[in-house]
């Protein structure tokens, strides 16, 4: 009986949310046309990163990592290169540290030491992961196009794919074609 109730709930709730959304009446997010969830977080520099400011305007790359994740650290120079080359063309990168309370003290020293210049925020509650990386994987990359829709999700890091990633970003920026 409990299983039946659980399954019924599982089927009914998506319908309920659709109904709620219709009742709400509003569409879009500040005119961006994106239905993706927004979040607000404080960067290591003390500034506020507001995803909603970029959805539907910029190409947004959300990169999940952690100080204890070696593949993540291997990937970061590539993220920095993308930031250096394409920020002026409308690429917005936000690096989301998944570090919990025990390791978060190491986030700022690592970023400072490597002199990375993209925005870094800490997902202190796990809410950003809940929205964009429910499995909590690292490294995990989400790329959102200028149309405010998720264009690509990439699990893991493989050095050979750096060029492919750059081509995809260029294509979304309208600077070239994905290969």
């Amino acid at each position, binding site marked *: 009986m409990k299983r039946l109730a659980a399954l019924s709930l599982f089927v009914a709730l998506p319908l309920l949310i659709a109904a709620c959304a219709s009742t709400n009446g509003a569409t879009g997010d500040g005119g961006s046309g994106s239905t993706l969830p927004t979040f607000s977080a404080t960067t290591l520099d003390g500034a506020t990163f507001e995803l909603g400011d970029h959805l539907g305007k910029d190409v947004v790359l959300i990169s999940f990592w952690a100080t204890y994740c070696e*593949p993540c650290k291997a990937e970061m120079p590539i993220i920095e290169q993308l930031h250096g080359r394409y920020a002026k063309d409308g690429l917005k990168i936000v690096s989301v540290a998944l570090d*919990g309370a025990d*390791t978060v003290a190491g986030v700022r020293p690592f970023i400072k030491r490597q002199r990375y210049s993209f925005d870094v925020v800490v997902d*202190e509650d796990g809410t950003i992961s809940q929205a964009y990386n*429910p499995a909590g994987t690292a490294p995990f990359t989400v790329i959102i196009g200028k149309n405010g829709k998720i264009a690509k999700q990439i699990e893991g890091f493989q050095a050979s794919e750096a060029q492919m990633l750059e081509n995809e970003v260029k294509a979304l920026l309208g600077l070239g074609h994905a290969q």
Partner: protein
Amino acid sequence: MTSAPATAALALAATLLGVSLSPPAGAVIPFEVGGVKLTLDVTESLFADFHTSLDDPQILDEADRSNIFDIRNRLNVRLRADKLTLGVRLDFAWFANPPANPGQASQYQDDIRPEELFLTGRFGDFTVTLGDDYLTFGRGLALSLRKIDELGFATSLRGVHVQWRTPRFRARFVTGLTNTLNVDGVEEKLIPDPNDVVFGAQVEGTPIDGLKIGAHIVDIERRHSGIRTALAGALGGDDDDRPLSNARHVRTLVGGGSVELPTLGDVLSVYAEIDALRNEDTRETASGRKDTTTTGLAAYGQVQLFLERLTLLAELKHYDNWDVSSTLHPDTAQLQGITQTFSYIVAPTLERIDQRVVNNTDVTGGHLRVDYAIPDSTDSLFLSGAYFADAPVQNDHTIHVYGGFEHTGTGTDRLLLQAGYRREEAAELTRLRMIHLDLDVFALLAPGVDMQLHWSHEFRDKNVGTATLQETYLEGTSYVSVNLPPDWSFTAQFEYLTDASTDSPYFPGAIIQYRFTRDSFIRLFAGRSKGGLKCSGGVCRVFPSFEGVKLESTVRF
């Protein structure tokens, strides 16, 4: 695998796998209902384990724990519309031939339930979540409900979370019941939710640029508190009044505050937090129930200094009776012998992430790490030292020193080499003497061929100075992966543990992974992996060893 249940299990696994491997429709699925734009985001994860021998000492007969096949499935769905997100994670566990434990209730049970269920809306500066949510106050000393994937733990708060956030101010209020991952991938036993009632409030403000102050309070109403008992009827029961070991845990109150200077002149960063707790219990004595109250104190401080080539991180901690964990469930504790509780905090350990820290509740210590960036390169050297008093037990002390070299290339290569020494000293003996070596390498071997190598090795001496308990042994984990992007990855794994309690000290294994898209994969492991105490961020868990075949598939639509 010749039994009918096993055959049925394989058929079910093949069906689920077939569903998993059907071509994904794309990153997300957009559609419209009544003119409202919606997107559907689905992540489907399947885990199928075949244990040639299940490592569970509670099951005495070898035949009862041989050739166990089980499936766990997680279906994660996010439905988004405008300012609202609905999240559901449906968990499913099924045992083809659950291990029997004669005379005991089976702890391995089929199960299906919405493990996560939430509706989040963001309205201007307000964010409201109904249902399951994860949260941390400060540095996790007062409350930290998060997923700890490495240990298979995930505890959420199922209730209401309201947050008001502006650039200079944040306030939030939470209340709900604690909801744990009921069937995890480590022990695979069905654990009931603790269902402790939690009330929490936090405020953070930036009164002037560069200064952030905060305060928080947490009230955990336990199984035998008046509030929890009063709510039991409305919450569907679970108001059991049986004491455990004559003790009833009533309430835990935690309060504290923090001060942060995130960036002083771009060279200094400071954080400090202090918290106090009060535990209220009652005990049954010969003269009736007797109320008892205990208190605790936690202080944590951190200083970061950034100079031209030097980066310095200093941390201090002092914890006195600092334990905030879930209530032990009487049903499982008394009938099934499951005594697992779940920590509601993650107090900084100041240790390496995977260090076995058996005491982080009554300890004082400090940690200093210095990194030096080598000129004209992307390389650095680092040295780290830590000292802890009353660790691992009262009147003991622990030192740990390690250092190493870190090379970060341009995205095609990375190397981390470190070595260290740890000593846990008691009055009459040395509890542990350990030398550890760690190596991580990423390299592009050739165009289209990546390599990843990991090796961690420990020389360990336990109970040095005792005639009968002294033991010298080795422990380590190594693997090498060759990736042929975008599809294939091959990994050879070798673990070892040569202590006296391990019958067969070597644990070989192999992994094949196939990515059918960049975000979806299927992975097959065959072999053995060692068990033992594993820790992450100060939270520890005893893992059973594994022997058999594991299949894992994750598909994102």
